[in-house]
């Protein structure tokens, strides 16, 4: 459902969209049933002359059924949704698949600094490429990112990846993503971080390995 509104550009996006649809169908059912019951009762029992209201305490067993049975059904639905949420969370947030490459993301007031591993595919070597507000990743490659902040709490959010993680000063949080779709996507800061909160619009480019190699080459040509 979400993919109608925003591109689905990573493996996590697929998982999360699936869960979103599951929840939408489940709670949509409850929503329709409850609203239908509400409006039906309002219409059916509108005030009419000479029709008195019934006296129902709701404390007797056969009356209580009317709320205890839906109540049990709500619990069943909750269990299904909890299972779906927990499994998806585990896949997206907890389990880190083996990394092909790593990037480092450093947030500050008000810019994103990205450290790319460079042609050798390793961080903390001489060919690392630092950029500001410009992250470039290869398609179908599993990335681990190390996220931190220099000053206040920021949040690294890529809607097309369904990826969001707060960047907290004093902590390094590790996460992963695997792009599945070429293109350029918005990176937003999702945690208010001061005057420039709206002015941290970085771009994320998903490119082919050949394009990335060419970009690295052009960078080192400029730099060297």
């Amino acid at each position, binding site marked *: 459902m979400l993919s109608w509104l925003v591109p689905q550009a990573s493996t996590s996006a697929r998982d999360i969209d699936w869960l979103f649809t599951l929840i939408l169908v489940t709670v949509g059912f409850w929503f329709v049933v409850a609203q239908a019951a509400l409006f039906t009762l309002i219409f059916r029992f509108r005030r009419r002359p000479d029709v008195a209201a019934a006296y129902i305490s709701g404390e007797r067993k056969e009356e209580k059924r009317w709320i205890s049975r839906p109540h049990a059904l709500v619990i069943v639905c909750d269990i299904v949704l909890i299972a779906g949420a927990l499994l998806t969370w585990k896949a997206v947030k*907890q389990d880190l698949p083996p990394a092909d490459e790593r990037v480092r993301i450093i947030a500050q007031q008000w810019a994103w600094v990205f450290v790319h591993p460079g042609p050798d595919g390793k961080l903390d070597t001489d060919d690392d490429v630092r950029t500001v507000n410009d992250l470039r990743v290869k398609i179908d490659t599993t990335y681990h990112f190390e996220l931190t902040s220099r000053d206040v709490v920021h949040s690294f959010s890529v809607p097309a990846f369904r990826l969001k993680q707060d960047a907290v000063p004093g*902590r390094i949080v*590790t996460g992963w993503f695997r792009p599945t779709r070429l293109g350029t996507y918005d990176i937003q800061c999702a945690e208010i971080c001061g005057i420039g909160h709206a002015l941290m619009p970085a771009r994320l480019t998903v490119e082919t390995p050949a394009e990335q190699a060419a970009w690295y080459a052009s960078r080192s040509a400029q730099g060297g």
Partner: protein
Amino acid sequence: MSAEASEATRHPNYVRVYLTLLVLFAISVLGPLLGHPWVTLVTAFGVAAVKATMVAAYFMHLNIERRYIWYLLLTMLAFMGLLFAGVAPDVLSQGGQNWRHVRPAQSAAPHH
């Protein structure tokens, strides 16, 4: 009024409670001198819990108060335990699943 009178007769000997508290206090100060961490833990915090319970029971008269006042105060303490349990994995620990603290090396040096 008769109820109040019977309450009064049930009051403990306050001076005896006070002397017991002083003995416990001495234990809590002397315990650490043994230099054993577990002894310190028990004499400092175990004794503190006993002392606080005694003060609550005999000086604050919770022993003759309605029972649910105990429950009320203990519920509040339990919520603090809950807060601790929920926060400690993030604040107490040095790191966890997929995250770690980065701190400048801590020393007793002044930070200004």
